């Protein structure tokens, strides 16, 4: 059994994959806590899809360098995040409409860019569906550094994020920098989406943002324990998912997500609040 478990670590690419997915799982879980508490799931999904034009342009500019692609993806996500925020604030559209508008423009632009270049299609699939086994050492460094920054900021500022989420008026009366904090949360989400690119990909980023925190929400009574449990389930899903992927021969991204979903369903069954949920 031990040999079976250790087998994975014989390959350097497997170790890199494991580190990348653990970082992804943990960071998504932390940021995802606010995603589900603030009802930002659609925003998260839209943001994940909005990196596509950045990915395509980065690919073109960097002549196929995956590292360059990550930075362009980050720029794309930041632009999308801030435009969605600004469009919702400055127009009378409902927030989800504003998000939808930016989402479709960015995604369509991305696909349009990709369609201009034949060589794109195969390589860019990696970003759509993730390719954690193909993480290069350089990419891994970027993922770890970005992930660490996001996690540190979320932990340092968690009181601010909590108050602007729970009672924004209180944040105003306490003289918190409300606008700064809400924009920062959007930016952190944008960075998180980029961290996810390589492991679960654009299409399944939302799963990592939503599933582990929801599992934590079911089992925890307070925010700190919810965050801790989310991280635990995010990391567990990543590690187990990689094993399942390796031994069952399915793609790593969906495998991680499906394990995360299984953990969620398990929590739903044992949750003390299950009856309450079902009764609604």
């Amino acid at each position, binding site marked *: 059994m031990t040999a079976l478990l250790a087998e994975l670590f014989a390959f350097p690419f497997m170790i890199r994959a494991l580190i990348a997915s653990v970082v992804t799982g943990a960071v998504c879980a932390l940021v995802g806590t606010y995603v589900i*508490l603030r009802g930002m799931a659609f925003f998260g999904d839209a943001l994940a899809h909005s990196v596509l034009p950045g990915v395509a342009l980065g690919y073109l500019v960097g002549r196929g360098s995956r590292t360059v692609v990550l930075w362009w993806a980050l720029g794309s996500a930041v632009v999308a995040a801030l435009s969605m925020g600004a469009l919702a604030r400055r127009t009378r559209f409902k927030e989800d409409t504003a998000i939808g508008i930016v989402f479709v423009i960015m995604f369509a632009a991305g696909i349009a860019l990709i369609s201009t270049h034949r060589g794109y299609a195969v390589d860019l699939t990696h970003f759509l569906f993730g390719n954690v086994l193909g993480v290069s050492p350089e990419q891994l460094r970027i993922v770890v550094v970005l992930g660490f920054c996001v996690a540190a900021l979320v932990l340092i*500022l968690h009181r601010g994020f909590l108050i602007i989420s729970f009672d924004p008026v209180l944040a105003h*009366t306490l*003289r918190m920098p409300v606008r700064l904090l809400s924009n920062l949360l959007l930016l952190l989400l944008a960075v998180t989406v980029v961290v996810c690119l390589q492991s679960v990909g654009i299409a399944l980023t939302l799963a990592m943002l939503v599933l582990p925190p929801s599992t934590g929400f079911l089992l925890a009574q307070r925010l700190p*324990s919810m965050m801790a449990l989310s991280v635990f389930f995010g990391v567990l899903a990543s590690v187990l998912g990689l094993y399942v992927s390796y031994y069952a021969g399915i793609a790593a991204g969906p495998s991680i997500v499906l394990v995360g979903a299984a953990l969620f369903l398990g929590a739903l069954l044992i949750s003390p609040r299950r009856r309450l949920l079902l009764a609604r």
Partner: protein
Amino acid sequence: MDPAPHLPVIRSGMRRRLRHQPGAPALEMEGLSVCYAGVPALDSITFSLARSARLGVLGPNGAGKSTLLRVVAGVLQPTSGEIRVYGARPRGHTCIAYLPQKTGVDWTFPLTVVDAVSMGRWGGWNMLRRSTSKDKVAVRQALAQVGLLELAQRRITDLSGGQQQRMFVARALAQEAELLLMDEPLAGLDVNAQRDLLDLVEALPGDPTVVVALHELAVARDRFPQVLLLNRRAVALGAPAEVFVPTHLREAYGDAVELIDTHRGTLVVTDHCCPPQEGKAG
């Protein structure tokens, strides 16, 4: 569940960004107007409120009660006019506590009562540091003062409507607020819970200024020394007996009230708010 007003008020550890001007009223407005997309929600409001006053703000739905409170809280900027809190502009104070409507917050948040009350201590950059023992003492004391100490570890979603409002009062006490703005705190409370909450507000330690938006004319008449009748404009301000007279009530509520003269005064039948209720004035 009785409040414990005999406990001393702790004032420590909270940095005030603005100095209050000595002798200035708690709240002053001069020609204050607020427009939403060109439509006035408040129109040329002028009044001043002494320190430690208890003011009930009444008016039909859409009269601008919440807008008024939000301007004072510094969340909304007035379109024109002046507003001063303890002699200074509202933004910059940390002594103002806004107690949201029941529907204003998400009660499914994973928070305990003590977590929610502790938020009152996180003003400004305090959010970056760990809670000190002074913070913890202040929070415990605030919980004791509103009678929620036993429920401190309860999740906020499990509180009754009255307990939720008391929790917000405790948060304001922990914040060491000197001006409490309560937005329809009585909505959805039964008569007993309403009475308990009003008793608590009357006996608040530290004698803060309190402004309460409410719908119940009878409650305002019985429990508030001063009332403001609002319908975008300030219709009348003063003692309930002077304010709740037929001309003012008709001006504020229009056809929504039916006034019946009885030998004891004017009986007001309102249907502007759900559930329909009766109140007596005059």
